[in-house]
């Protein structure tokens, strides 16, 4: 049993935070990178062109336990403490949610170029081309899994519980083009012109590998007084791209993969007042259809155990090899990439400062984020996330900020970002994992964004 927990723990202790780069979103100097969440953010922090140089965002986390508790668990395990040292396991058990999520992901940007088309020295259209690689792995399990292991089935007498962890993996390439255009709008109830900047990102998705167990379940029913235990496996596992032989030939694999799909991200940024900028985005809308090397494994089996039947010969006790029948067939299936909604806001404090003729900034900025997913799947969670941040900026040379938030996968977090610009060379990082410094038992994940770029 300890190994089951260990596997869960290792995934959690790798320390990562949320599924969204929240701290990066508070950094106005990385808006080209942020435009993957809101397409209208392109073209803001550079005059003509920005080329990102292999930025990456690594993130891992869970929603039920901290790295410190897992460390304590292994410390107790090594020391061989007795039943009087139950604190670490008790904390893990108490932290369990109805739906427990473990998630790890890597977003590696291979190419990310943004440039502003100008007409008569004025910005006419903002464009972006990007090629990215995503690797996401997630697992969702009900708290009944660990409760059953540690508290026994009497706790669930006359109840049906689902104890199957749903593992989902997605690796895909992401080739996208984005465009945004700012224009002014005069509304009758507003004195000033409203600056509206809609943006759209069209994505061609190349699926490499996928494992999808969303619709699988293993139900356990313990009859009153334990008269029988019934297990029902409704297996529906879709898998693609896990055969290493298929990668011996890479002809056309970059744009073909094992499946293709399309996605669209929509966003709009509105400057409502002189100092207030509000954004609304609906992103990661789309799906990938896996066709090649895709298999569906199904099973629908019910096993009832009422005890060893002494009317049967004892050697029939272990003749159960035909209990689990799995059907495997080639298939074609589509998986979503996980739609999310984001509402963001930035409010500048003090006077607006100019950089050249076309750019400006505020030295002090308060920013706000609200992110809502629509399912518990890979980097998407239905737990809404709210974050409030502060940034200090000096021209394009320096931007530092901190932020705090609640919700999302890891429930609460404290993050920071830093940006340094030396002429056209830009460097920055962001993380949402500073909570562990304050209280290591409150941190349920870690993430890190690193970027370098050339900006003109």
């Amino acid at each position, binding site marked *: *049993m*300890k190994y089951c*927990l260990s596997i869960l723990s290792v995934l959690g202790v790798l320390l990562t935070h949320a599924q969204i780069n929240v701290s990066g979103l508070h950094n106005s100097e990385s808006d080209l990178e942020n435009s993957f969440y809101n397409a209208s953010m392109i073209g803001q922090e550079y005059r003509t062109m920005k080329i990102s140089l292999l930025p990456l965002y690594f993130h891992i986390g869970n929603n039920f336990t901290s790295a410190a508790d897992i460390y304590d668990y292994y410390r*107790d*395990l090594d020391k*061989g*403490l*007795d*039943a*009087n*040292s*139950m*604190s670490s*396991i*008790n*904390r893990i*058990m*108490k932290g369990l949610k109805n739906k427990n999520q473990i998630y790890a992901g890597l977003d590696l940007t291979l190419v990310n170029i943004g440039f502003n088309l100008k007409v008569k020295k004025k910005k006419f259209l903002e464009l972006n081309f990007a090629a990215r690689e995503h690797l996401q792995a997630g697992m969702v399990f009900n708290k009944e899994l660990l409760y059953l292991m*540690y*508290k*026994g*089935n*009497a*706790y669930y*007498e006359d109840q049906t519980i689902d104890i199957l962890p749903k593992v989902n993996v997605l690796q895909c390439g992401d080739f996208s083009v984005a465009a945004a255009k700012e224009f002014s709008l005069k509304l009758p109830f507003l004195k000033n012109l409203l600056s509206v900047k809609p943006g759209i990102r069209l994505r061609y998705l190349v699926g490499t590998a996928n494992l999808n167990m969303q619709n699988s379940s293993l139900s356990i029913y*313990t009859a009153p*007084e*334990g*008269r*029988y*235990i019934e297990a029902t496996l409704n297996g529906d596992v879709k898998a693609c791209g896990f055969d290493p032989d298929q990668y011996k030939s890479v002809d056309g694999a970059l744009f073909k993969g094992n499946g293709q799909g399309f996605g669209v991200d929509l966003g709009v940024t509105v400057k409502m007042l002189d100092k207030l900028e509000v954004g609304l985005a609906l992103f990661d809308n789309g799906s990938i259809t896996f066709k090649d090397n895709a298999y569906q494994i199904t099973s629908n089996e019910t096993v009832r*155990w*009422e*005890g*060893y*039947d*002494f*009317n049967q010969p004892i050697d029939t006790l272990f003749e159960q090899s035909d209990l689990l029948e799995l059907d495997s067939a080639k298939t074609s299936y589509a998986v979503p990439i996980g739609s999310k909604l984001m509402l963001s806001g930035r409010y500048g*404090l003090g006077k607006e400062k100019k950089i050249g003729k076309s750019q400006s900034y505020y030295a*002090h900025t*308060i920013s706000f984020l609200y992110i809502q997913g629509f399912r518990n799947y890979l980097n998407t969670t239905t737990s809404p996330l709210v974050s*409030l941040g*502060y940034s200090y900026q000096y021209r394009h040379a320096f931007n530092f900020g*901190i932020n*705090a938030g609640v919700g999302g996968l890891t429930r*609460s977090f*404290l993050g920071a970002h830093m940006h340094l610009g030396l002429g056209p060379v830009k460097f920055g990082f962001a993380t949402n994992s500073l*909570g562990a410094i*304050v*209280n290591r*038992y*409150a941190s349920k994940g870690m993430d890190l964004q690193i970027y370098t770029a050339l900006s003109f």
Partner: protein
Amino acid sequence: MRNLFIFFILFLLSACGKRIVDNTPLESNWLLPLVKGNISLNDLSRLEGTTFDYVITPAQINQPTNTPVSSPAFTVDFIGPFTVPTQDIIKYLKVDSIELGIHLKNIFPVNIQSGFTVTLRSSDNTASSSNVLFSKTFSNAIAAQSQDSLPLSIHNVTIADSLYFYIENLNIDAFNQVVFNENVPVQFTIDKVRLNELAFFPNKNFSISDTVEFSSGDLSSIYDAGGNTLADSAVSGFLNLFTDNGLPVNLRMQMTFLKNNLPVDSVFENSFILNGAGVDAAGIPNSIDAKKNSVAIRKVKLKNIESCDRMIYSFSINTDGYTSPQVIMGKQNKLALQIVSDIALMLNPFQL
């Protein structure tokens, strides 16, 4: 700005809560069905392999012992009866089929000719033909100092409370100056039995009790499972025995453990008692008696049993309380039995 700074300070302070230490042991309760099954009339097939041993003495063929004798061939009208032991609780049993083996070793210094008959009678009167339940004549001849096994199949007979076997029309070859000094062993073996119906007299009892050697082995792995630190007297679980008795007999069972021939503990606090099924006026079961018996598993009991070296088991069936002329057990009547463990463990996850 100042408000923003205060917000972050408050946020940081709120996260600085002291870690709560809770060493409450995890109590784990498991309901696990262990054993189930049915006991019915068909389970009397467990009588298969039962043997009944008899002997034929020289006197039964009218010969003296330890004296040389000679005789022309002659016929013995019958040898027997070989009484089959029955229980007085049984009123009758309707046999679908019984397959017997008769194993006879002819130690007599004379040859037995073919043509003898094995007869099953309901009374010990060989003059009557009305009490013959079954008879079969064998074509086997059994030479002196040889042995033979004779198969016998009996179908569709009703056996009452008495049962007698006879060997009839036993033809003996002529012999000259031979000495009879040993008995001929005859063994009846029940190879297969199928019953249609079994009827009991009311208010009768049948008991089996015996003392056997006993060794439980090391039970510490059970009562110390998972770092169980319970006191000896604490109940760490129950074995729940669920029964649905459709058999029209009451059952009683107990196992008592002995150490140095002195009783130390028993499986049940009192005997395990099952009431029989309800019956109609003709004695046919018409209701099932459902019951749950629980055996508390205490550490001290397991320790007591671990120390014992002998066990007395006792099992009895009775028909006390039935008022019909008989109670009838048909093939469809059964006792359904299930044992479910309800075990509480104080888990130490570091030892799992």
